[in-house]
């Protein structure tokens, strides 16, 4: 009995100092700095318990409108700060523009709409296209490169005028085509693009780690140029188009710049130069599916 009283006496006594402490804290903290006290007053907002007693799980005592009144939401209406709206109002684009007009006794200028109404409405409305998913334009396609093709790999070209020739791979360009060079001095293949699918990758690799390829060698550099100036001269259209391809000086300098570096690396490997000079061919008893490249 005595023992029971003591802990019970202790419990309320403990509680009182506990309650006092936060109460004491407030005035104590207010004294050192008004800023700090003000901030802590906002933080120590006591949230009210739910004003809607629960009758059963999911069912409250008061209706939605009763709760609106009980929570005094009629007092708590917030609007967004107005300055932003004012800013948006100022940022409206110009709808009309005044343009000068020539001629005599015309008034000198007209007020013209910048965004005009459409001049034609189709008789049948075009039906709205259904949303499509994952259809990207070519420029956004994912470019892949076979694991067997790394910078410095010797490739065998299978199509084009250089078919059968063995060639050194330099890098993959933005459209996914492979930048490739003979080198020119070895097998007359210049800096050229090749398609990954029409190429056999051999396991022979040249160490091209230090070779610096000029950055202006992109797809636009290699793209075929077509003249587009038809002056509606029907008799002479076939003559004006470029028939002969002329090697520009820039191509020559770029070829030299790259080849000098690559040739040095090729000369270090015995017999590689002769290998690149030779062409690939199949003969009797040679089956591509059985060959190890």
């Amino acid at each position, binding site marked *: 009995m005595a023992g029971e009283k003591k802990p019970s006496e202790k419990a309320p006594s403990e509680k009182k100092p506990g309650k006092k402490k936060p109460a004491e804290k407030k005035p104590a903290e207010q004294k050192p700095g008004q800023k700090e006290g003000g901030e802590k007053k906002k933080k120590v907002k006591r949230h009210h318990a739910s004003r809607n007693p629960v009758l059963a799980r999911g069912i409250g005592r008061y209706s939605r409108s009763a709760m609106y009144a009980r929570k005094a939401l009629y007092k708590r209406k917030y609007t967004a700060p107005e300055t932003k709206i004012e800013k948006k109002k100022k940022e409206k684009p110009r709808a009309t523009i005044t343009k000068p007009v020539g001629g005599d006794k015309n008034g000198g200028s007209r007020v013209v709409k910048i965004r005009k109404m459409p001049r034609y409405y189709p008789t049948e409305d075009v039906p709205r296209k259904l949303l499509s998913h994952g259809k990207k334009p070519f420029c956004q396609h994912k470019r892949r490169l076979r694991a067997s093709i790394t910078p410095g790999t*010797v490739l*065998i070209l299978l199509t084009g005028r250089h078919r059968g020739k*063995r060639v050194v791979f330099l890098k993959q360009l933005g459209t996914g085509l492979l930048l490739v060079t003979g080198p020119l001095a070895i097998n007359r293949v210049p800096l050229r693009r090749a398609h990954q699918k029409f190429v056999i990758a*051999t*396991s*022979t690799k040249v160490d091209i780690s230090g070779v610096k390829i000029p950055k202006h060698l992109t797809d636009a550099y290699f793209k075929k140029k077509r003249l587009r100036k038809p002056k509606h001269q029907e008799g002479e259209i076939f003559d004006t188009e470029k028939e002969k391809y002329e090697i520009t000086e820039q191509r020559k300098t770029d070829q030299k710049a790259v080849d000098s570096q690559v040739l040095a690396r090729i000369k270090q490997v015995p*017999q*590689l130069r*002769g*290998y690149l000079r*030779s062409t*690939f061919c199949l003969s009797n008893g040679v089956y591509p599916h059985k*060959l*190890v*490249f």
Partner: protein
Amino acid sequence: VFKRFVEIGRIAFISFGPHAGKLVAIVDVIDQNRALVDGPCSGVRRQAMPFKCMQLTDFVLKFPHSARQKCVRLAWEKENINQKWAATRWAKKIAAREKKAKMTDFDRYKVMKAKKMRNRIIKHEMKKLQKMSSKKVKKPEKAQKSEKVQKAQK
């Protein structure tokens, strides 16, 4: 007529199956078609194996029938079967075949160049020898011919 017999201790080469290409020693005969076989130094566990997939080699070890793996291993290592096998023409042919199948395009080019050079040298020597022999034949022939001509003239 037959030189290699199935006996205890005969080393066999496995030609097909999961252990193709490995050597095993015949430890015991189970029945007409199967043998108890063990290859401690070639990675084949002691097991029954049909005779059909085994090809007998020239090597025989000495151990009693149903000897345990330790004994087989001792006998194998004593005779240095692995070294002896690698020195046989059979094993060398297998190794050459494997190498040929693994040749890359560059290797094939190098082989072609080497063969070409070799054949050229051989041809060169052949032609030399042919020339020598033809000279020897021609000289006495010429002498005979000139004699005949002189005799005819006379």
